């Protein structure tokens, strides 16, 4: 990765663009997210990895405003958004591409993008630019999105978030239900997106994909942080141990490279 890597606690990095402080979220009696903290700096790609049910999507949705945390705070550029409604957070520059795409099925591709522009901020992304970036879209722009393939829907969902010209793009499980080659292609678009000044916080079950694009990462298990660092720092064994919650010998073996 060529983007500058900031480490937590490193001086000179300035304020993080997006910050979660000791965020705790409950689903009824289940603690889905347990005192998680993260800081995402401008221009970087921060990845949250972990198995199904680890709490990653809940965390992302809480940052977007769809869940209220039981404790903790969400800050955008230093501003506390914890009590702000999701639509206002979206207007302030947090754009979530939700798990499962969640396109407006009865609307066409272009209409979906137009909804994205309804409360958009000023910026480089327009519907035309989305058509240039995802070349197949223009020809199919009047097609109802319910008829598109999974990968096509995913790119429309990303496009819908982009045209709002957000400051932070939240990507929830892009790879879910898609063929690996499609996933590669979509993640391949990331540099183009970052080049326009966006910051990305993504959630992924596919660890190798996440390691390939992230500048920093965090692993969750049962709502708690089990690993933090950069792709360069962590070994495969450490990731495996953190992902699955392995203890004992495997964890000890993983304590290899400390820097």
């Amino acid at each position, binding site marked *: 990765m060529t983007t500058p890597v900031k480490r937590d606690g490193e001086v000179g990095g300035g304020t993080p663009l997006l910050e979660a402080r000791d965020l705790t979220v409950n689903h009824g009696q289940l603690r889905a997210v347990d005192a998680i903290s993260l800081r995402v700096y401008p221009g970087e790609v921060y990845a949250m990895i972990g198995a199904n049910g680890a709490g990653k999507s809940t965390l992302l949705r809480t940052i977007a405003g769809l869940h209220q945390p039981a404790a903790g705070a969400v800050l955008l550029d230093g501003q506390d958004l914890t009590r702000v409604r999701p*639509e206002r957070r979206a207007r302030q520059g947090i754009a*979530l591409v939700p798990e499962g795409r*969640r396109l407006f*099925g009865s609307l066409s591709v272009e209409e979906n993008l137009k909804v994205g522009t309804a409360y958009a901020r000023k910026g480089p992304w327009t519907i035309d630019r989305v058509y240039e970036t995802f070349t197949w879209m223009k020809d199919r722009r009047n097609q109802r999105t319910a008829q598109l393939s999974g990968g096509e829907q995913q790119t429309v969902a990303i496009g819908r978030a982009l045209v709002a010209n957000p400051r932070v793009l939240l990507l929830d499980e892009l790879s879910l239900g898609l063929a690996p080659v499609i996933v590669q292609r979509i993640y391949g678009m990331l540099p183009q997106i970052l080049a326009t000044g966006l910051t990305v916080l993504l959630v992924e079950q596919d660890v190798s994909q996440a390691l390939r694009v992230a500048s920093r990462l965090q692993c969750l298990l049962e709502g708690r942080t089990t690993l933090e660092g950069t792709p360069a720092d962590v070994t495969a064994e450490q990731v495996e141990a953190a992902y699955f919650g392995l203890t004992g010998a495997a964890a000890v073996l993983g304590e290899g490279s400390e820097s």
Partner: protein
Amino acid sequence: MAWVNAIVQGVLTGGLYALFACGLSLMFGVMKVVNLAHGDLAVVAGYVGVGVITVTNIPVLWSVVIVVPVMAVIGYFLQRTLIQSALNRGVLTTLIVTLGLSMVIENALLQFFTANSRGIGAGMTLVTGSFSLGSQVELPYLLLVIFAVAVAVLLGLQWFLSRSSYGRLVRAVADDQEAAQLSGADYRHVFGIAAALALGTVALGGMAYSMYSTLDPTAGTDTILLFAFVAVVIGGLGSLWGTLVGGIVLGIAQQIGAQINISDELLAGYLVFLLVLVLRPQGLVSRRAQS
């Protein structure tokens, strides 16, 4: 030839029923709410119209121009306050709250205006006059105008939903409320707009009904709500033009029933409704089967 006249009358009353029904269909399509007070609010509109005319003595059609927007605004606020609170607590609560609202409105009207029925425009040629087509077919001016208004309203709604940016938001929120929020839309405001449209159209229907027939406190449920619902189901859930088709079928069924036996008018309409429910539950206009 009396049968032909019956069918013609039935088709024309379909326009009135479409006005009753399109608001109900819209509210259900957008926010999954069945407003049991839907018809009663139409009656309120009618009474307000009567009041406005009595107090200000303006021409009847001008009262329509005043009442409809007022009811639309009331609809927006009713949605943002009462109905949204109920929606936040679930479907059951919403039904109970709107049922309660219906009872309160009907009994309040009964208490303040008595059970006597009222109408407007009794002396106007628009209301009483008609064309004659041949010796057996009468085309009442009022029904023709109501039918034309209904078609205009449906065209307007269709244009609004498919072409305007607000209409697009309404459709988006109807598809996926949460995703719309993520794109910056306040769905409560969009719901309010849908409710405003629903109440505006049903107020129009209520005013039309007070000219076509007479209003009494129970007409809201006995006539308007039930007919609106039947028209929606016959036409097909989720179809705007289906409300016109459903209204026409209901109207024809009622008129034919009246031809057979004058007291069978209502029963005939309901039997056709049951028939559609049995044979084609998704309605006449819907393309795919609903479950």
